[in-house]
């Protein structure tokens, strides 16, 4: 903070000791980063390491983050800690939609990032970022608490880099629409596939046997 009192004017001594000048961004971001409340949202093995990080040895409350909220309305940070299954992903998207802005998502571990060791499984989603925007990825299976802590510090860096003038949640024209919630059909139905599905339906209409492809072409 620079001394920005114009030259020639003299501030009283008491005022000099009590008034600090800074930017709105610094204070705003300092407040947000130092009280980022995670959502109590354990999916799998990684949640245990998340709890280990909460506990005595790593002590997340050093960063003002010890208050884990069960309600998405009160949480700022969603830590996707574990394998995202097809059965679970509609709930995760819904929870994400219910979180108030500003909201952040941290994909913890290999499963949340890409499906991890279970990627090939018929009930496993290849990474939560197919459905929800992710801010920070943490590698590991599971990541050690140190690694997760590093990811959270990276998240703080991201918060510090934002400016109140440009953040989307104060822009009227950039209001976040809720993300489309996938549907559990015969398989997980991602709404972005609707057009392609419709096209392939049309293409297959005239044929007896058709294997459908996303480009609308039917083969065989």
């Amino acid at each position, binding site marked *: 903070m620079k001394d920005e009192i114009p030259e020639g004017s003299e501030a009283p001594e008491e005022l000099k000791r009590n008034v600090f000048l800074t930017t709105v961004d610094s204070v705003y971001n300092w407040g947000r980063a130092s009280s980022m409340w995670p959502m*109590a*949202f*354990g*999916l*799998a*093995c990684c*949640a*245990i*390491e998340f*709890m*280990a990080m*909460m*506990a*005595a*040895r790593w002590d997340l409350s050093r960063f003002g983050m010890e208050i884990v909220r*069960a309600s998405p309305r009160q949480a700022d940070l969603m830590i996707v800690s*574990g*394998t995202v*299954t097809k*059965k*679970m992903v509609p*709930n995760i998207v819904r*929870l994400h939609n219910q979180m108030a802005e500003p909201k952040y998502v941290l994909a913890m571990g290999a499963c949340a990032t890409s*499906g991890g*060791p*279970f*990627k*090939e*499984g*018929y*009930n*496993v*989603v*290849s990474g939560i970022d*197919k459905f929800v925007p992710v801010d920070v990825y943490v590698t590991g*299976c*599971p990541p*050690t608490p140190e690694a997760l802590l590093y990811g959270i510090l990276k998240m703080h860096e991201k918060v510090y880099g934002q400016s109140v003038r440009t953040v989307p949640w104060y822009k009227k024209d950039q209001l976040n629409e809720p993300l489309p919630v996938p*549907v*559990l*059909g*015969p*398989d*997980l*139905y*991602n709404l972005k*596939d*609707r057009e*392609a*599905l*419709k096209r392939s*339906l049309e293409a*297959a209409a005239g044929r007896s046997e*058709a*294997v*459908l*492809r*996303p480009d609308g072409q039917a083969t065989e």
Partner: protein
Amino acid sequence: MGVTTDGVQEAPVAAEGAAPFSRAVPGAVLEVTKNGLVVAPEKLVDLATYLRDREGYDYLSMVTSVDWSGYLEVVYYLYGVSQPKDALVLKVRLPDKTDPVVPSLISVWPGADFQEREVYDMMGIRFTGHPNLRRMLLWEGFEGHPLRKDYRESYYEEDFKPFKSRHPDGEHLWAEDRAPWKDNISYPVGWDPDLWTSPEVQYRRIMGVDEDHGNGSGIKTERILINMGPQHPSTHGVFRMVVAVEGESVVGLEPEMGYLHRCHEKIGERNTYIMNMPFTDRLDYLCSMSNNFGYALAVEKLMGLQVPERAEYIRVIMAELTRVISHFIAIGFLFNDLGAYFTPALYGLRERELILDLFESASGSRMMCNYMRFGGVFADLPAGWVERARDLVWNRLPRAIEEFEELLTGNEIFLARCKGVGVLTAKEAAAYSMAGPMLRASGVPYDLRKAQPYSVYDRFEFDVCTRPEGDVWARYRVRMDEIYQSIRILKQALDGLPEGPIMPPGKKQYQVRVPPGEAYGRVEGPKGELGFFVVSDGKPNPYRYHVRAPAFINLTTLEKMCLGHKIADAIVILGAIDIVLGEVDR
């Protein structure tokens, strides 16, 4: 029936001539194979009733199924709990693969409930007489039955790993790029998303839709359906229970699971044997060492491997340390559910860190140890490990458990909330296939380490902890007592730890050769009887791989224990079962 030294049973071999039990239930046993008795489906219930009442097979340990070419096979493993008995394996063969039907055994052993639903879900076998036969791990409307051999997931490449197709011309091709939708998704041909409505589960049974209900005085109370989970702080993960309440009293409850169903068994059947070892870590992710142990036992049984003495001792030490961790965490989280938010759990996690340090220095990983191998363990203990373990076992852990006792055991609120809540009698517990502390807290002194000692457990002195009460408090008490007994075993094992090799002689192999056959290896895990059912056809991959998850089967009684209690007690009862979702959903 022969029992091998590692406690895995040989299948019964019948006397020559007449089929076994032919006098009691004529025509029931069609064929005697070396892996079990083939039973006629229409006689199954009669035979099961006879075996339960007359032969002392009062414990249905596991129900699973195998998809053979030509027929589907439902496999039942029976044991005795009041009188420990060796396994009796019943098999029902169903040649009709399009609509396989078998009578439900729920009337004989109510513990068959969830297991039969799982078989229906995964294999598509219908159980007649089952009151609530619907999808268990997947959702209603899911297409296909994944454990059928002809089921192909979207990322399917080849039947068995290692895939030859991974580097066809020296170039790597991602599964995503190969799959038709560039994603782990496949839609059936001609499926119209706009016309789709998800089949809705009505919960008619717990809502009492089909019955007239009231409190007897003619006043009707409206039933309300409360949905807890899958994101709920007290469900220990992504478990969901649908509770029907009248006022605050629970009148019906249905567990919904599968939110962490990671296709463990299907992936396990594509993997080679050794590749499954790290996957077992992720079953019950608090007790990876015990999981390794059970899987190693099952495959060693098939391979006929002899484990060196030092490796056996190391395994026992690791398994008992795991039990201490698991019980500390279970108790900590039970108190979480009671409202003592996080402080007891913090104390548990603190001790856990010290044990994890030992695991990390031995195996290289804190949580997912992947430490055991067929025939031994992956690496010897590093220098100074035993001294650190001794310090922990002799000094630190006894103090920690004393602290727990002082702070928690006599707590008045705790006693008021737990005594008399969620009672299961000994008979019910055995009939519902409960295992581990759940069974022993109901007064059944059944502990595999004593009943059918595996590894070197027969060399140690320890007591089987039981309580007669069968309530939540008894489960807490049994877990605390088991920590004392684990420390006792640890002291003897650390004292007696011999020098020597940790793997059988010979070159270390990446690909193990497993002769054809079936094996069921089970260990007394912290949550209960953890079983691994492995079928080999001589190839480098298991033909069938099934996990008997104790937490999953222990959930069968959740409704029974909760009925009549307040909804706040349901949380406590669930906490006392000590579920880990990785194991429940697999």
